[in-house]
């Protein structure tokens, strides 16, 4: 963050020409990663070194997260043994925290694909150092979401009945069921994201192979598939990444649309909303981008990646978050105003519950965290360049988006057309599994960060080669070469 930007309002800042060319170049280099090239071996070292470092703090976090995951596994075992009765689920409320977790964690996963695929296609240059960290979050968010669906099942040992496998009894899954679509969509998205992250990893795995010994060397040698970095390999790599980016964008949009159809296709009041598809995607991107900012802040500090993750990246992500906050508000307003205008008695009951019922604190906290806090604070450049403040805002966004899903799933299903059958949901042992789910994402991320490079070195090198400075008159302007 240079003095140039914050200390004066825009109309009082010195003109570009007032600086000498030297200072201009220096300022641009400090601000932009792609204009601040280092030698490749330095960069390799910066990325690989934190992977070997396992200090006591690491082991403390490792044991804590591992313990939480173990606790969740034991609770799940108890649930399989005794039945779903150990949760707080009851008759009108059949879907509780487990499905809130599913929707939430799939949502977290959306930002990764968006950043690495959509921003790649749109040639947004600052995405380069973030893409791998975001994709990794996609991978583990999605896995945890898929796991939550299995935890949610009453008879999980029969879950393979969802697969269309040939069998003697000629049973076939029901393709009319949104759950079936959901299952297939998540499976597709998961396969796609694994391949996509792997494709992007290939050159870096080869780099790691050439710089390591022992088991790491053997592992990377297998995973890098004999990558040598020839011209032809790079050409194929670029083509396949481009194709993959275009393919995975519609898959990403379809997944959360289909997740929303689990609700929108039902006749439960509050769920059967036609706007749920785009609304869920927006919400997913919103919570996902906020989660990526939190992860960026953590790995920047813990793995000393200050060189790679700079103010420009946090600023870019925060602007994106601001746009998404307003887009979310637009969809939420739509989803609110139409049923309100429709005036169905049961919708009135639901709105009363949100405005002045027991759910009111949750509802207002959701509006505060999703709209008012980011919507007001993120306009400020000072807020966008302060990482701690940004992290606090992003944590609020996580709370808000979790609450949004909580209000939709267990709170709304507690109200229906027959007042005799209303109910409330008080989570019980599923809170432990929820806690463990969050720990699981962090735990897998932690393990991943020790085995795989979290910063795509080849992408940054590519960007730095393409990016240059052009002198126009007395000003230096960043310019970018376009590869074929």
């Amino acid at each position: 963050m240079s003095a140039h930007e914050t200390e004066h309002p825009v109309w009082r800042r010195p003109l570009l020409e007032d600086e000498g060319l030297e200072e201009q170049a220096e300022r641009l280099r400090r601000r932009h990663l792609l204009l601040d090239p280092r030698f490749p071996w330095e960069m390799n070292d910066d990325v690989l070194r934190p992977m070997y470092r396992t200090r006591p703090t690491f082991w403390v976090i490792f044991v804590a997260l591992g313990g939480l995951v173990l606790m969740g596994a034991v609770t799940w075992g108890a649930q399989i043994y005794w039945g779903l009765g150990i949760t707080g689920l009851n008759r009108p409320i059949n879907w509780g925290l487990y499905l809130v977790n599913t929707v939430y964690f799939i949502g977290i996963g959306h930002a990764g694909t968006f950043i690495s695929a959509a921003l790649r296609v749109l040639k947004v240059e600052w995405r380069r150092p973030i893409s791998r960290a975001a994709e990794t979050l996609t991978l583990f968010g999605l896995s945890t979401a898929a796991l939550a669906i299995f935890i949610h099942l009453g008879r999980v040992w029969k879950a393979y009945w969802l697969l269309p496998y040939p069998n003697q009894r000629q049973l076939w899954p029901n393709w009319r069921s949104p759950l079936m679509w959901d299952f297939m969509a998540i499976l597709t998205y998961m396969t796609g994201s694994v391949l996509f992250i792997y494709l992007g990893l290939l050159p870096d795995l080869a780099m790691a192979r050439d710089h390591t010994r022992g088991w790491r060397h053997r592992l990377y040698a297998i995973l890098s598939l004999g990558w040598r970095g020839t011209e032809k390999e790079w050409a194929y790599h670029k083509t396949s990444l481009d194709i993959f980016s275009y393919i995975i964008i519609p898959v990403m949009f379809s997944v959360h649309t289909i997740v929303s159809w689990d609700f929108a296709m039902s006749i439960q009041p509050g769920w059967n909303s036609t706007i749920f598809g785009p609304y869920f995607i927006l919400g997913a991107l919103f919570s996902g981008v906020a989660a990526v900012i939190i992860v960026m802040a953590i790995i920047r500090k813990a793995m000393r990646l200050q060189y790679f993750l700079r103010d420009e990246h946090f600023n870019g992500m925060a602007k994106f978050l601001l746009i998404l906050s307003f887009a979310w508000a637009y969809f939420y307003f739509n989803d609110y105003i139409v049923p309100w205008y429709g005036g169905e008695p049961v919708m009135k009951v639901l709105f009363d519950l949100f405005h002045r019922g027991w759910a009111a604190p949750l509802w207002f906290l959701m509006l505060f965290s999703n709209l008012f806090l980011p919507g007001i604070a993120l306009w400020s450049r000072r807020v966008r360049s302060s990482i701690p403040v940004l992290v606090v805002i992003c944590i609020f966004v996580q709370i808000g988006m979790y609450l949004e899903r909580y209000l939709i799933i267990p709170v709304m299903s507690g109200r229906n057309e027959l007042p005799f059958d209303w109910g409330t949901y008080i989570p019980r042992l599923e809170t432990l599994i929820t806690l463990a789910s969050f720990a699981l994402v962090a735990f897998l991320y932690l393990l991943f960060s020790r085995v795989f490079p979290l910063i795509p070195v080849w992408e940054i090198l590519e960007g730095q080669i393409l990016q240059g400075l052009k002198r126009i008159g007395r000003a230096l302007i960043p310019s970018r070469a376009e590869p074929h």
Partner: protein
Amino acid sequence: MEQPERKWTMVIDLDKCTGCAACVVACHAENNVPIVTAREVARGRGQHWIRIERYWVGEYPDVKARFLPILCQHCGNAPCEPVCPAYASIHSQRENLNVQVYNRCIGTRYCANNCPYKVRFFNHFDPVFAEPLDQQLNPDVTVRSAGVMEKCTFCVQRIRRAEEKALAEGRPLDDGEVVPACVGTCPTSALVFGDLYDPESQVTRLVNHNARKFRLLEHLGTEPAVYYLKGGSSHVST
């Protein structure tokens, strides 16, 4: 002999219902419906395939209780059926029953969410039948395990038995021969059961040209097979 297509239908006369809940008890006994503990009921997990919903009408002191027996409506266009990924909730085409195949249920609970009448019951635990209830389980009905959804079947075991008996005797099934447990036990005969495709049956006569008839939440388009006859002050001569 091929069995004819049927439309099993129930008519519930709300003028006759006293809310005594004998039907609930009979249903529990007939269908091995688990009797859950008081604590579980307080958690909202009471399991009654038929229940009496009691609504208070009017302002104090002029308050009246209205009773609404609610069981699975065996919808012609059932919201629970298309949402089950495992085909556990399906429509029996010939009898127009909404059946639940316990063995095929994997417990996604989507059907229960999508049921506007909330008549589907999930087994949160394995059922426990305390002494001496374990001595009177009905051998014709499966006891459902934990993790499985269950609901009213219109006593399909009784339908089968009556049909088979008629088949064995080589005669068509008579109206009134199939009596579900709730219908058989109702002291005021508020519940009537029969085949709506049979133009002579009692349910057809009650449903046809009856200004009192209505179906629950009909605006949702579920085509329920349970008809209610309005009671109380809304009484209209038939």
